[in-house]
């Protein structure tokens, strides 16, 4: 209960879409710049200045895409589930939009991880695909993203869609720890974690640096695109409200009311 009230206090501030839009438009250019900067630096180290692996040769460079993409796949789902929870518990409209905006980005990163993983698997394991726990759970993650998107678009009323899909996002979250720990719980072909571990990274700095840079680039990209998509959704909501007013006449939309009520709370 106290947690609920505390959360309400924190989140109330950005329930106002206009204030959120203002914040978003300041962050967005920075995120875009960071994406490009980190990406260029990361690619330079990854492709030019880092060594090939003594075992894997040049194919090791796939890693600099694969690993950050895989991280992002899990990160986006976590973020989506968290936003969904905030949306459900505190009825926070921007959080709902954030969850909806995250899903397609996460799905793309998941696809990228699967795709680069398969590309890498061919030279390393001699096959595009094996049915091991890590690969399988990532594939399931991909379908959870698809399910989320399908469900959120399956209703005539978008508010219904985002609530139903938020519940799905929370239920599907059980898969994330399975992905993370699948390599420890089952013995599989796939590499166990070597960067994010309890006792520090077990990987040489010349490979670690580009990896980290690429990871930052992907994060910045996520923030950039997500903000863009939320703004798009807010505008779409305004168009819908205009439409509704055109059809039914009269009452102002939810957004205007929210703006009024939260204005008072300041």
């Amino acid at each position: 209960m106290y947690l609920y009230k505390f959360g309400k206090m924190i989140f109330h501030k950005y329930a106002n879409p206009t204030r959120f839009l203002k914040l978003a438009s300041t962050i967005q250019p920075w995120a875009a710049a960071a994406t490009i900067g980190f990406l260029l630096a990361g690619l330079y180290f990854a492709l030019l200045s880092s060594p090939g692996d003594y075992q894997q040769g040049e194919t090791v460079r796939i890693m600099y895409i694969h690993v950050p993409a895989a991280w992002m796949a899990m990160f986006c789902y976590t973020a989506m589930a968290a936003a969904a929870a905030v949306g459900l518990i505190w009825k926070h409209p921007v959080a709902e939009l954030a969850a909806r905006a995250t899903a397609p980005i996460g799905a793309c990163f998941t696809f990228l991880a699967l795709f680069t993983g398969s590309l890498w698997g061919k030279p390393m394991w001699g096959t595009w695909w094996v049915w091991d726990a890590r690969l399988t759970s990532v594939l399931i993650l991909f379908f959870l993203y698809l399910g989320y998107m399908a469900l959120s678009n399956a209703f005539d009323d978008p508010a219904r869609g985002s609530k139903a899909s938020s519940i799905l996002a929370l239920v599907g979250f059980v898969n994330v720890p399975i992905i993370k720990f699948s390599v420890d719980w089952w013995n599989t072909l796939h590499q166990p974690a070597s960067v994010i571990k309890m006792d520090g990274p077990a990987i040489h700095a010349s490979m670690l640096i580009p990896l980290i840079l690429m990871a930052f680039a992907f994060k910045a990209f996520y923030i950039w695109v997500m903000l863009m998509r939320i703004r798009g959704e807010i505008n779409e909501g305004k168009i819908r409200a205009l439409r509704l007013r055109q059809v039914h006449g009269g009452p102002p939309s939810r957004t205007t009311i929210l703006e009024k009520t939260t204005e008072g709370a300041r």
Partner: protein
Amino acid sequence: MNTFISIVRRDLQLAMRQGMDSVMVVAFFILAVMLFPFGVGPEANILARIAAGVIWVAALLSSMLSLERLFQIDYEDGSLELLALQPCALEITVMAKITAHWLTTGLPLLIATPLLAVFMSLPSDGFWALLFTLAIGTPSLSLIGAIGAALILGSRRGGVLLSLLVLPLYIPVLIFGVSAVDGAISGLPIKAHLLIMAGLLVAALPLCPWAGAGAIKQALET
């Protein structure tokens, strides 16, 4: 408790009277399994090799298909909102409906399994393991599927959407179910698998009615 029993009894009564529910699910189960001798060819050793997997997959699909209507009819005729307005937690109602669903679909599947095992020449070592894993696996399927069935209430498309939501969540049950049977056939100990499956069931038992009730409350807010 009284509520629970009343609802289970009503749902069983409805299933009996409007007839054919269980019969149709079992018929689909048998048909789906039968497609494989046609699809894969009738060689007994291949069939035997894939028997457990095919039977499990068919059970999954039958369970999923029959779940589509779990809450749908009550939703459409207004019963669901009255159920939500009774002085007992909606979770209990959901649990009761899941129980009735399992009794009318999961149980008949179990009963039809021996026939299919013979049909697919399942090695006899695997028979009891198959029956046993289905017995503890199908309740998990009904439980997990109930979340999906509640989520699609009022949506524009039913069946395909439900499958997309539910099948990914079914996969763990399938994996352990089949590997237990395969283990039994190869003479390995399967206790660990069964324990994991029981664990899945125990985890789903409180979680799924809770999530399902949440989804139903959302659906009734229209």
